[in-house]
Every structure is written in C-alpha cells, then in structure tokens.
C-alpha cells in the first residue's frame, strides 16, 4: 500500500457517497473520510519506520509528465491535517440537513481528494490539476448550499472563483516555462534547474499571483470575507481550514525553492505585504458586524503572519509557518463551527442580534472561549507556538516587522474579546439558545484536545516536518 491508496479511497468515497443516496450520504462520507484518516496514520507509521510510501508512474510520456506523489514530513503533515479536518468538518455538519445531501457530501469528499492530491503531488502538472480541481467543489458548495441573498452570493462566489482561477493560470504559465527549462515537471527536476535572476523574478511573480490570491495576502484578499460569509459553514471551514493552506504550502514547497534568488531579493516586499495584511486584517475585523466576516478578517491576519514567516526564508519561519498552518486549521474550523452553532439556533450571523448565550449554555461558552483564546495565541495553545516561531523569524529579518506583525497579539485580542463579549456575554436576550448537542461538543473537544496537546508537546509534529523543511531550506540557500 502506498500513498496513492488514500487518493483512490477518497475518490471512491466520492462516488460511493453520491450513490448512497441522500439518507446515508453523510454517514458514508464520514466513513470514507475516517478511513482516509486511518490510511494517513498508517502512512505516517510507515514513514516513521523509514519506509518510503511515495508513488510514481509515468502518465504522459510526451510531454514528460508523471503521476508522482511524494511522502515527506511536510506533505504528510498536510495530509493528516486535511484528512482529520475533513472528518471533523463532516462530523460537524451532522446537525445540518442539506437538501440533495448526496451531492453535497460527495463534493466535500471530492474536495478533500483534490486537496490531498495538491499536498502530495510531486509533479507540478499533477499538482496544478489538483489545485484547480479543488476549486470546483467549493464553488458549487458555496453557490448552491450557501446563505444570504442569492444575487449577492452569486456575485461573491463567481468573483472568488474567477479571481483564484485567474491567479493560478499565471502559475500554469510559469510551470510551462519551467517545463521547457527542465524537460520534466517533477519537483526534483524543477529544483535542480538554474534560472537567471530575471527568469526567477517572473516565475516568482507568477507564483505569487496565484498564491497571494489563494492565501490571501493583502491586497488580494477581497474575495475572502464575502465568500466566507456566503458559504455554508462546511464550505467556510474547508476554505479557511484547509484550502488556504494549499497556498501557503505551495509557497514553501514550490515557490521558494524554485525561485530562491527572487525570493531573497524581494523578500522585504513580500514580507511587508504580508505584514500589512496582518495589521489591516486585524483593524478591519474590529468593526465587523457579521460574525463570519469578522472571523474571515481574523483569518486574513493570521495567514498574513504565516505568509510573512514563510517569506522570511529562514528555517524558523518555515517551521513556524507549517506549525501555525496546522494550528490555524484547527482553530479556524472551531471558530466557524461556533458561528455555525449559533447560526443554527439564532438563524443569524449578525453580532448585534446575539448576546446572552453564556447564561444559557455555559459549556458552549467555555469551549468557544478556549478556541478563541487559542486563536489569539495564548501560550500553551498550539497557536502560540506557531505565532511565537513566526514572530521570532520575522524578528530575525527586521525588528520592525516583528513589532508591526506583533500588534496582531494586541489587535487580535481586541476584536476577539469584543466579539466574544457581544456574542456570548451579557444579559439573556429573548432568544432561546438550545444547549449544544453531544455531537457538537465532540467536535469542540477534539479541536481543543489537539490545540492543547500540541501546544504543550509539539515535538511529534516538529520531528515530522523538520527533515523535510531542512531539505527545503537547503534548496532555498543553494545559491
């Protein structure tokens, strides 16, 4: 068994879910997604035992394209993140009833399939295919099962789709160009080619466009808030929890090692943009009236920091980025799930229409608060480790980057606490908040457990990703 098995499993699961019919779709989907978790863990064990589970066959002989799936610490970490989060997200949606749920869950699994593929691909062409494939299901999920005014939603979702697609097409051009230089699109061959500075600049710029939109980095973020708001929660979680990480992962895996010279030359600009995103996202989040939009802007701030760390090109920056990617994945899923729980009961996303929930359901309030605190990077949560490492790496570039990006610590607390205060605290309103179900709390418990465990003992993940990142750092510094 090698890693392609997980992809096959998920693809098969997609069809099985669709065929299972509306009634059993979610169960089947969850089953397959759990199976993929099991598979990933198996692969993890194999990897730790020193067995390489990579997979490679020739797909198209001319042009020379392979189906190459690479298992190293980095991709494995992302694989685990994707499969675990997908399971969580699927499980979290059990409280909802979607019409035509067989299509819905099939799309979710398909998206998981595509994202796993993106993380595993070691051939740029394959990678690009998965990258684009991931866009299709989320488009439909957001479009069909989304909420809000239909016309506005359409506008937002189409913008999201075209915008992200536009960015990635330029990446495709860059890959084509690289293909002509290297004669193959295998990642190893791409790493090996030596490009002139000018070439690197354009390649880097093309990649940047794709990733900056996906991540998103200021000022390419305008699709984000509306899309998050309009999508159904499952879609929002998939988008913010995993899909954004595709962009960040790609920066580390593809952009930096392929064009290290450009990355170094223009490092300050990219870090600056990312850091501006951090501050800007935080400030805009202060005055949001819509809960999901607020969370979206907070996400903008957080991923800005991750991107800044990645662009710092240091080992610490990359490591921090990966750690924070995982941490942010869990946290943001938790936060959006909290928003979803409230929405299930109050049928609103407007913060002004909430309040007084803690009185009615203390358990939920506590869990929400823990996740929220993790999101503001309270020490002993996983996010702190990521944020600390990232800020430290930024400090090593320039103290002012660290200071400016560090304001997220303050501003994050401001908007999060403000939100929490108005959403959860205060006198009981006339709205009845039904206590959260066991199923809902299970999701939270898992998230909190992950966040706290790795917050105190991040060694397993660290050991997993370190060799792979070392490899990449060597590639970046090859010149």
């Amino acid at each position, binding site marked *: 068994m090698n890693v392609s098995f997980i992809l096959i499993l998920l693809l098969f699961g997609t069809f099985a879910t669709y065929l299972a019919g509306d009634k059993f779709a979610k169960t089947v989907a969850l089953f397959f997604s759990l199976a993929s978790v099991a598979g990933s863990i198996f692969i993890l064990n194999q990897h730790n035992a020193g067995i390489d589970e990579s997979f490679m066959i020739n797909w198209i002989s*001319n*042009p020379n394209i392979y189906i190459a799936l690479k298992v190293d610490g980095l991709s494995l970490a992302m694989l685990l993140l994707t499969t675990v989060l997908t399971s969580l997200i699927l499980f979290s949606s059990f409280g909802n009833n979607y019409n035509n749920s067989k299509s819905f869950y099939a799309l979710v699994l398909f998206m998981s399939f595509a994202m796993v593929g993106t993380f595993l691909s070691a051939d740029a062409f394959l990678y690009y*295919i998965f990258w684009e*494939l991931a866009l299709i299901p989320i488009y439909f999920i957001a479009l069909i099962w989304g909420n809000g005014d239909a016309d506005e939603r359409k506008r937002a979702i*189409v913008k999201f789709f*075209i915008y992200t*697609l536009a960015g990635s*097409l330029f990446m*495709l051009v860059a890959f084509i160009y690289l293909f002509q230089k290297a004669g193959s699109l295998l990642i190893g061959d791409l790493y090996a080619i030596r490009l002139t500075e000018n070439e690197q600049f354009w390649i880097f710029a093309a990649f940047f466009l794709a990733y900056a939109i996906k991540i998103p980095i200021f000022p390419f973020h305008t699709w984000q808030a509306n899309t998050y708001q309009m999508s159904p929660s499952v879609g929002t979680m998939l988008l913010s929890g995993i899909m954004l990480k595709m962009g960040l992962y790609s920066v580390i895996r593809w952009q930096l090692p392929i064009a290290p010279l450009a990355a170094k030359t223009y490092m300050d600009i990219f870090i600056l943009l990312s850091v501006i995103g951090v501050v800007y996202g935080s400030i805009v989040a202060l005055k949001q009236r819509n809960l999901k939009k607020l969370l979206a802007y907070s996400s903008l701030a957080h991923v800005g920091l991750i991107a800044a760390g990645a662009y710092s090109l240091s080992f610490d920056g990359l490591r921090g980025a990966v750690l924070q990617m995982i941490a942010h994945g869990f946290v943001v899923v938790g936060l959006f799930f909290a928003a979803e729980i409230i929405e299930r009961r109050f049928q609103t996303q407007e913060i002004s229409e909430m309040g007084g929930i803690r009185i009615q359901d203390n358990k939920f309030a506590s869990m929400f608060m823990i996740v929220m605190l993790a999101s503001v990077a309270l020490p002993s949560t996983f996010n702190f480790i990521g944020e600390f490492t990232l800020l430290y790496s930024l400090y090593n570039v320039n103290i002012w980057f660290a200071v400016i990006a560090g304001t997220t610590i303050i501003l994050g607390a401001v908007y999060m606490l403000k939100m929490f205060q108005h959403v959860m605290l205060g006198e009981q309103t006339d709205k009845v908040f039904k206590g959260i179900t066991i199923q809902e709390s299970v999701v939270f418990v898992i998230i909190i457990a992950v966040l706290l465990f790795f917050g105190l003992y991040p060694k397993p993940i660290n050991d997993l990703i370190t060799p792979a990142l070392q490899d990449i750092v060597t590639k970046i510094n090859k010149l």
Partner: protein
Amino acid sequence: MNTLIAISGLGILSLLAEIFNGRKAIVPITIIGLLAILGYNISPYNHLGTFYNNMMFVDKFSVAFTSLFIVVTIFLIALSHEFYKEQATKISDYVAIKVFLLAGAVAMVSFGNLSMFFLGIEVLSISLYVLAASNRLNLRSNEAGMKYFLMGSFASGIILFGICLLYGATGSFDLMNMYQITHSVNYPQWYYIGIIFLVIGMLFKIATVPFHFWAPDVYEGSPALTTATMSTLAKIVAMAALYKISILLIPTQTYSFQMIIVCVAIASMIVGNIMALRQNNVKRMFAFSGISHAGFMLMVLLILNNSAGVLLYYATAYAVAGIAFFAVVLYVTKGKDNETIDLFNGFGKTHPLLAAVLTASLLSMAGIPILSGFFAKFFLLNQVLLSGWTVLVIVAIISSIISVGYYFKIILAMYTKDSEKDLPNNIPFIYQVVAILALVINIGLGLYPSIVYNLLG
C-alpha cells in the same frame, strides 16, 4: 482514399433509403456505416500514400483527422433522428447532406490537389448553407442561411482567387509539385499573395476576427443541430485544412506572416471572449466562444514541434465538449422560440445528470483540469511558449480568465435559479447517450491525453 468513396456512397445510400421507405432505418444504417468506415479508416487496410494522380494524399494526419470527423459526424447524425422528428419526410435529406458534408470534410484534409480542396470546401459550405436555412418557415433561419451564404460565397471567391494565383505562380495544382517548386525554383511573388488569399478565406471559415461577424448571427439563427455541426465539425475541419495548407504550401513563414497570425489570434481570443460576456443566447454565446477557440487553434500555426498533435488534441477536446454541450442544448431548447440562458434556470435541480454533463463540458471549454479542454490548452500553450511567443500566452491566459465569466453564467443559471416552467422530464434517450458518451470521451482524453496527443508525434 476509399474512405472518401465510401462516405459518398453512404450518402447516396441514405438518399435511396428514403425511396425504399426505409425512413426509420436511415439513422441506424448511417451510423453503422460510418462506424464501419471509421473502422476501415483506422485499420491497416487503409493504405497511406497518394492516390489517383495525387488527387488524394492520405497520411497519418489525414487519417487521424478523418477519424475525428467521422466520430463527430456519428454524434451529429445520432442526434438527428430526434431533432428532425417533426419533419420526418426530410430526414433522409438531412442525413445525406450531413454525410456529404463529411465527405467534403474528408476531402479537405486528405487533398493532394487544390481542386479536391476547393471542391471539398464547397461541398462543406453548400451543405452548411442549406442546413442553416433549412428551417425555411423560420425567418431567423432564413436570415442565417442568407448571411452565411452571402459571406461564404464571398469568401469562396477569395479562396478561388488565391488558388488561381497559386496556379499562376507554379503552374500546377498538385501539392507535391508545388512543394517542390516552392522549395527549389524561383517563382513569382503572386504565390505569396495567393497564399494570403487562401489563408484569409480559411480564416473566414474558422471565424476569426475580423472575419468573424457572420458566426454569431448564423449560429443563432440556424437550427440548433446545424449550429452544432457548424461549431464543432465545420470549425475543426477548416482549421485542419488551414493547418495542412500552411504546412505544405508556405515555404517559409516570414516574420510578418507570423505577426498576422499572432494579431488575428489575439484579436479573436479577446473579441470572442469579451463579446460572449454579454450574450443572452446560448448559441450566440457559443459562437463567440468558438471565435475565441479559433484564436487558440490558430496559434498552432506558430508552433514548431508536434503542432499536428496539438491541433488534433485541441480539436478533439473542443469538438467533444461542443457535442456534449449541444446535446443538452438541443433538449433544453426543443420547441422554444429562442435559446436564452433563462431556459436553463433550475436545470440543475430538475435534470441533475444533464446539468452535470453540461457543466463538465463548459468546464472543459474553460480549461479546468482533468477535462480534456485543460490539456488542450496546456499542450498548446506549452508549445507556443516554447516557440517564444510569450505575449500570446499571456493574452491566451487572460482571455481564458474572461471566458470563465460567461461559461459560468450558464452554470449559475442551472444551479442557482429556480425554473419558471417545468421542462418535460422525458429526456430523449439518444440525447442522454450522446451527452454522456461525449463526456466520457472528454474525461478519457483528460486521463490519457497521450493517446491522441502523440498520435501524430
């Protein structure tokens, strides 16, 4: 060579079937016949080489494209039976015309002599004029036929003029002779003028800017199945023929010639895609989309390696997507006065399967991976970039982005709007079969692109 004869014979056979009251059997017989011809065409019995004093010149290129044309025609004829249900008395005519059209198409890619080429293009064009105007009680169809006819014969005149100049320069219509002359002896400059006229005529046939104006009007006015024929079969035939001409008859591509191609390609991609944005009629939208695809295919002329493979793949991908698209459109627009996008409202809920097929084919044309349209664009842009036309690639990318806008208009209509009227849910079996088959081919081509791509390598 025998393929052409067989196809012509099949056309006559379908005419005869009407006489012998075998109306119901026409479509099946024709399809079986075409399948047999297809089998023969790709079998080793179909010898490569030149035939009848170089009138026919059969090589891998022509065999591959002939097969593609036959496949597309099979689909189109399969759709005919249902489409012409109301005018059953005329079905043999329609089928025969389509088969003859195929014969013309085959002549256009396997000609060894410009006379065959000219006759081929005329058979093709005249068939299309007839088909465009075939709904003779409908003024829109009349108008389409008239416009197509006027402009088409105008273009034919130009093509003829070009051929004449080629003849004047070389004294021969034979490709081999001309090839030898242009590669060895001095010859008058008329030759180039002739080539340009010929190319312009073909640019008209594939509908590139600024010779594209007919396409939207004609596509819109023609009966839907004719639109399907024009946009899928006719376009790729003309493109293949143009490719063959430019490979065999142009001794060296001068920079200025390449510039012309570049400009036309860019203009087509941009104009086609931008104009399609505001279209409300799916056929018209498809026409503009076709214009942009023509611009894409035109870039093949600038490619140095394996350009035939790229063209074949692109043409196949485009045709298959078009067939699937039209199979659905035929069903949706059946019995309607027009073909506005509103007709698709709520289609995703009422007909999930067909909606999925339509979505997939639109995605394919937009160039979304795993569907063949993506690979087509990838192969094409890869080669274009290799040939050094970076600007062209950038424009192609930008126009691809624009194209997503209108392809998704249909998808949006299908999935986000509610249908006002109930469509009859008795989807004709044959439409479903064609749509799904086309989609399967589409995906298959995406999974195993080398099958087609390396066929001519």
